[in-house]
């Protein structure tokens, strides 16, 4: 396909991390983020890094895949690195040429900030690498469920999100086909200014919307003809059941948090 994208870059593998309950994984993610922010020195960050490395090893996701997942955000790592290195004015001087001044403090800060950000990106990437988008969606909805009492339509949010996810590849396929059909009639998409380009999209977007509405209607009919209705009494095809490993994960996370609070 012309638009070959990896949504959430989910990497399928058989591992403890993959099998963890989504809610446990989300808890772990937030716990790790908290520890990353709690750590106020390299030793603290080192402990978190060690933990993240263990999770990576357990997850059986190849290192190359993880690096690929990080590539698009690596530019954001560059900013704190460069800013802190070159803009720090206090501290012991290490190097000076003309107006360029590099201080020990600057280097320390640059290293610390970059490592911190890297760890945050890594944990977030680990979550999406080991959890399919659908599972992620369901898990989040499940965590929203207690708020249903306050009028949060958790179930509907989850349904909408999973339908949207399901239809992304279909939409891309439709778009590709329509674009080719218009191209065969002489439409040119890759020239002219922004406005001209937007105008050439009209012949593609109108049919795409028309098709999407038709598909939405078909889906609604299909669901209705199978007596679908939402609401709190529905059970899930994938039941969420917490297992001992989820408790272990949460426990480890808690220990890590406490260690961070008291020691670093």
């Amino acid at each position, binding site marked *: *396909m012309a638009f070959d994208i990896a949504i959430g870059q989910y990497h399928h593998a058989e591992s403890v991390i993959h099998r963890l309950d989504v809610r446990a994984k989300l808890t772990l993610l937030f716990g790790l983020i908290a520890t990353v922010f709690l750590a106020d020195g390299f030793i603290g960050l080192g402990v978190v890094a060690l933990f993240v490395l263990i999770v990576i090893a357990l997850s059986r996701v190849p290192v190359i895949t993880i690096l690929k997942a990080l590539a698009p955000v690596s530019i954001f790592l560059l900013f704190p690195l460069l800013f802190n290195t070159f803009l720090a004015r206090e501290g012991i001087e290490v190097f000076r040429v003309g107006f360029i001044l590099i201080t020990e403090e600057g280097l320390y800060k640059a290293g610390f900030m970059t490592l911190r950000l890297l760890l945050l990106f890594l944990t977030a990437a680990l979550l999406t690498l080991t959890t399919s988008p659908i599972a992620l969606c369901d898990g989040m909805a499940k965590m929203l469920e207690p708020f249903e009492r306050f009028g949060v339509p958790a179930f509907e949010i989850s349904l909408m999100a999973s339908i949207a996810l399901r239809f992304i590849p279909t939409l891309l396929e439709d778009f590709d*086909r329509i674009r080719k059909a218009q*191209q065969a009639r002489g439409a040119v998409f890759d020239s002219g200014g922004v406005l001209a380009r937007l105008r050439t999209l009209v012949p593609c977007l109108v049919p795409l919307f028309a098709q999407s509405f038709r598909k939405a209607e078909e889906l609604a009919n299909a669901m209705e003809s199978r007596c679908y209705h939402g609401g709190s009494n529905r059970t899930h095809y994938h039941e969420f059941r917490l297992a001992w490993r989820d408790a272990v994960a949460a426990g480890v996370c808690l220990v890590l948090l406490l260690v961070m609070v008291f020691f670093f």
Partner: protein
Amino acid sequence: MLALEGVSYTYRSHEGDVTALKPLDLTIEDGTFLGIIGHTGSGKSTLLQLMCGLLSPSSGRVVVDGENIADKRVRNRLHLKIGMAFQYPEYQLFAPTVAEDIAFGPRNAGLSATEVDKRVRLAMERLRLGYERFAHASPFELSGGEKRRAALAGVIATDPKLLILDEPTAGLDPAGRSELLGIIEEFNRSGMTLVMVSHSMDDIARLANRVLVLKDGAAVMQGTPTEVFGRGDFLRSINLGVPQATEFAAELRAQGFPLPEGLLTLETLASAIAHELESGSVSRGI
């Protein structure tokens, strides 16, 4: 004339590579009606997209009137020579009115307003869409068959020499199907070269004068309809079949009713049976 020289195509994706078309040599002379048949996933749509430059071959080259279409300048003018209608072409309709939608191609070709209007009227006439009735209607209000014809009018409005159709009759009722096939037959008779993919052996037998058979991305047979449909057993072995008339003739022959080979359409079958009955050789007991 369109020629494919060792053209192959491989789709590349995350899940791995799929070779949809193995190296293929094919020449389509002007005026030909080429029918392409093959099981689902045999690479028919891929082949069509290679022919009109929507996909670039992984190997080999596509030559139209002596020019390689890998050349961007050649490809940019290709839509004037080659019209292509995908499966369910009505899903490409976008303009507020039928006439405007049909005008899309000619306008992209940079023709003058009067010339565009002339082309639109001609295309609608060729697709048997009354101008008064349909020109200012919204394409979304038409019936399925009318939408299909409006979309095809949009494809032939640039007056291409070669028209490529991917299952043009899919999803139409028998009347709509027969009407559309009649229209397509007229195109060919007026000198247009045609390439048509169809799952209906009857349609191919009725219209085509060359047939290409694809199996798993490879061309396993090429020839006249009589040659190709004469090998029913082979076709059935690759999930295809023969036209109903051919099948029926074979059944009759098996029952001892003498009929010649190579009967492809209902008309030729009927007259062969009538001839046989008149000549009296099978009058016993019938």
